[in-house]
């Protein structure tokens, strides 16, 4: 297995899906155990990948390359660089956590675990695919399984609202398909190999602007970014906690991964030329979502808008690409590093934020007789909220700081960084209110959510909090992992 780690990590959920389909619905413990084993094995493989990953290399590692469909020159190419690895870690951790969070899920357990495993296959494949056709396949699987998860695990009366997500996802898939068709048609290279296309920049020179916007809009449609965010609240607001976690913490990162994985390498000229768009999108989203976080008293909505708020920093970080125009590579490196780190930290942070109401209930339920136990849970709750604000010492702070710092280097985006701080203040004020409400147990905020489905939340929150804290104190661990890959990407763009 050592030589085929990526193939195994991709094959496990695919196999898991088929096995789960064959198991009867009544055998819920078997369903859960298989899901836990599959995601646990994936986590173990990810640890193997991290240990064997050469941080000093900017090139692709663990590459598996097979000729797949000779007729169309489609290859089965999967591989890892620092950026992909971080996203893969995020997805594995979230899927593993979700299995345990959903341990007490009431009805339709089989549907949930099958769809979750299908989504796992889609997202894992998506994060390691280096062939556009392969990427498209996994992208479609991810979109469809996410849509079914949202629709099946929400109240029936809200289904009409979930249609928004379906429509956005459909259009996004169509745009990406069109984009891939255009690339295949316009490029003199027959085939869909991402690396081969990226190594021949002149191949896509005549479709730089068109291709850039097709892919960008395609990815933005499923991103929680203003003005494409209208699906966000209906989709995440009514679904169960596990689905909300998958959607907000993981699925919302697909778009940013798509931009880093496809848009920037294939359309470098346009990415630099239109980098200001990233900045504008980021700033508008930061302000809009911060204002929403500030004005809503329902905790659930606050978390949803907070996801958009955290994601918006990633786009602000991407606007640092503009500095490549002025040969300021360090600024671009800072911005892109920030964007990647913010993606990961936002994902992990959202998992614990969604679980907070259960933690709060646990803290309230503990009697004073249990002594320190209660305070430990209360402390954990406070730490979650402080991590949300971006307290120095957490990874979230590093991500936001690097994104703002990357954007600050250029005169045109400097003002964005300054204004974005206003959003941080608004969110900070609201979070302090939540902290006060949680400690004093007031009714200022509505924490109503279905808590019956959540389980094992204290352990999961504790582990993620510790991870965020450790990575925040020693950010070098993450930065070393991605630095070479991000640098190679910037170097490549600069050459072009």
């Amino acid at each position, binding site marked *: 297995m050592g030589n085929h780690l990526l193939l195994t990590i991709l094959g496990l959920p695919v196999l898991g899906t088929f096995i789960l389909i064959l198991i009867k619905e009544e055998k819920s413990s078997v369903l859960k155990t298989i899901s836990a084993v599959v995601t646990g094995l994936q986590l173990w493989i990810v640890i193997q990948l991290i240990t064997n990953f050469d941080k000093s290399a900017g090139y692709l590692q663990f590459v598996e390359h097979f000729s797949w469909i000779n007729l169309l020159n489609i290859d089965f190419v999967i591989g890892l660089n620092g950026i992909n690895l971080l996203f893969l870690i995020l997805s594995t951790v979230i899927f593993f956590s979700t299995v345990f969070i959903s341990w007490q899920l009431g009805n339709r357990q089989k549907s949930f675990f099958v769809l979750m495993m299908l989504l796992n296959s889609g997202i894992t494949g998506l994060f390691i695919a280096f062939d556009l*056709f392969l990427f498209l396949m996994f992208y479609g699987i991810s979109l469809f399984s996410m849509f079914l998860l949202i629709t099946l695990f929400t109240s029936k009366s809200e289904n009409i609202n979930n249609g928004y997500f379906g429509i956005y996802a459909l259009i996004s898939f*169509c745009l990406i398909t069109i984009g891939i068709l255009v690339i295949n048609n316009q490029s003199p290279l027959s085939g869909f190999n991402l690396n081969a296309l990226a190594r021949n920049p002149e191949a896509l020179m005549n479709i730089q602007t068109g291709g850039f916007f097709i892919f960008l809009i395609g990815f933005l449609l499923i991103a929680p970014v203003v003005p494409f965010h209208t699906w966000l609240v209906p989709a995440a607001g009514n679904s169960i906690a596990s689905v909300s976690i998958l959607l907000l913490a993981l699925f919302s990162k697909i778009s940013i991964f798509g931009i880093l994985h496809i848009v920037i390498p294939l359309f470098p000229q346009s990415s630099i030329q239109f980098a200001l768009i990233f900045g504008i999108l980021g700033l508008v989203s930061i302000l809009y979502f911060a204002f929403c976080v500030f004005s809503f008293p329902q905790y659930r909505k606050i978390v949803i808008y907070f996801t958009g708020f955290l994601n918006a920093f990633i786009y602000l970080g991407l606007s640092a690409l503009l500095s490549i125009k002025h040969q300021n590579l360090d600024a671009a490196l800072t911005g892109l590093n920030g964007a990647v780190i913010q993606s990961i930290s936002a994902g992990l942070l959202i998992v614990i934020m969604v679980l907070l109401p259960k933690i709060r209930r646990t803290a309230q339920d503990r009697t004073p007789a249990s002594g320190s136990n209660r305070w430990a849970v209360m402390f954990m709750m406070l730490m979650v909220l402080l991590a949300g604000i971006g307290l120095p010492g957490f990874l979230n702070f590093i991500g936001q700081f690097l994104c703002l710092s990357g954007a600050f280097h250029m005169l045109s985006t400097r003002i964005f960084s300054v204004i974005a701080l206003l959003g941080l203040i608004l969110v900070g004020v609201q979070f302090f209110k939540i902290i006060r409400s949680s400690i004093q147990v007031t009714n200022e905020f509505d924490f109503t959510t279905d808590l019956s489905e959540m389980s094992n939340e204290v352990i999961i929150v504790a582990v993620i909090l510790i991870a965020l804290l450790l990575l925040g104190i020693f950010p070098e661990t993450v930065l070393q992992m991605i630095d070479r890959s991000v640098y190679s990407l910037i170097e490549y763009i600069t050459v072009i």
Partner: protein
Amino acid sequence: MNNFLSLHYFIPEFILLLNVFCLFFSSEIKQRHLIKIRQILLIVSVVTFVALNLIRWFDHPCGLFYNSFVHDPFSNMFSIILLCVFLIFELPELWKYWSSGYTNDLLQKLIILTASILLLEANSTIGLLLCIGLIYIGNSIIMNRFSHLNTDNSQITVDLTIQILLFGLLFFGFSIVYGFTGSLYFHTAQLPAAALLESPFNFCFLTLFLILGLGLFGIILPFRTLHEDHHQTYHVKYYGSSYFLPFIALFGSLIRILNGIFPMIRNYGAVPGEYMVFVIGLSICLIAGANFYYFKKKTINDLFVISLIIHYGLIISGLAVFTKEALTVSIYLIISTTIILAGIILLQKSDKISTQSKLIKTVFYLGLIGMPGTPGFTGRFLLLRALYNGGVSLWLIVLIIISILPIIYFYTVEIISLHRIKTVHPGIKILPVPAFLAFFTILMVIYWEPFIQLITKSLVFFN
């Protein structure tokens, strides 16, 4: 030259015809041993048909009766497809025939099968119209047999009138072909490229007649059979091989005629822009029309009908560029759609939903949605790629994609409601044919490259 020497190539068709005659003349026979002989003859015929067609699949094309009928890899491939479709739908009927020796409408269905196969081999206008006539008559008899199940007999009259009208349209279309080319044979009816470019609108007009004449079978008849029909038995019985066989055969025939008239496969790039836009426009209108129809009537039967029409719309868009690549994908798509819809129709016979049938239905629905990992996705992606590579503008491709979005949504809603239905566990037998079709659907994706290569290799016409 009367190429009588190639007669042995048509043995499969002759033995099928022999079966028809046997069934017809011995319908009153009650002796057990004679019935047994008749049954064995049918099995031997089917086996011989498959064996001979497989052995001679890629043999050199040859003609018969002054090239009125031809035998080439193209017709061979479609003959095998047609026989498979026949077996898929009529397996219960054949089983009944084998066990009791009695069948209601096997004779008519065999006539339709034989006529459909001959239709694919027809290389002249006369031969083609004869075969279409045979199909229509066979269909009319079947419709008539089921007329007693309907409270409203006027439906049968409307169906028959439509068939006559389609026949008229075709006749008119072939008159234009003859006017243009001066030949009744398709392989000699090649138009000079200059004429094609000079008067593209005439060709659009001609194609319209051909597509409507040959294709309306796939568009209007399903509506007619389901629209006013409230009796489940009627449409389930009718909407089987007797519908799908002519549908596929007429499409194959359309490719043969167009290949003969437009020398496009030979001269890539000779497709005039007007013709291309016209066919794509027709296809988009068809798809959009079907979607609007479903908005009005939201029954599950209507959904199956419109999905067939929408896929037909996609399939004919492949004729817009008329390249080998596009034709191959169109044929791949028609095969996958037929298999999926056949599976759904066979599953519809059961009112109760078991866990297994739910799973199989989901596989089929995902195929119609075009979910990655199903032939629906592969077919559509390859088709769009073929159209784009064939010179269709990106805007038209975007329009095609937009037009198929509603059906994706409709089927997604259907999947969701399917999974909300409570399943029935005990006593529900899983139909083996739909299960096999679901397996085959998955196989078509895993091994789609060999499938595509086989179809491409079979695109050799008699010349």
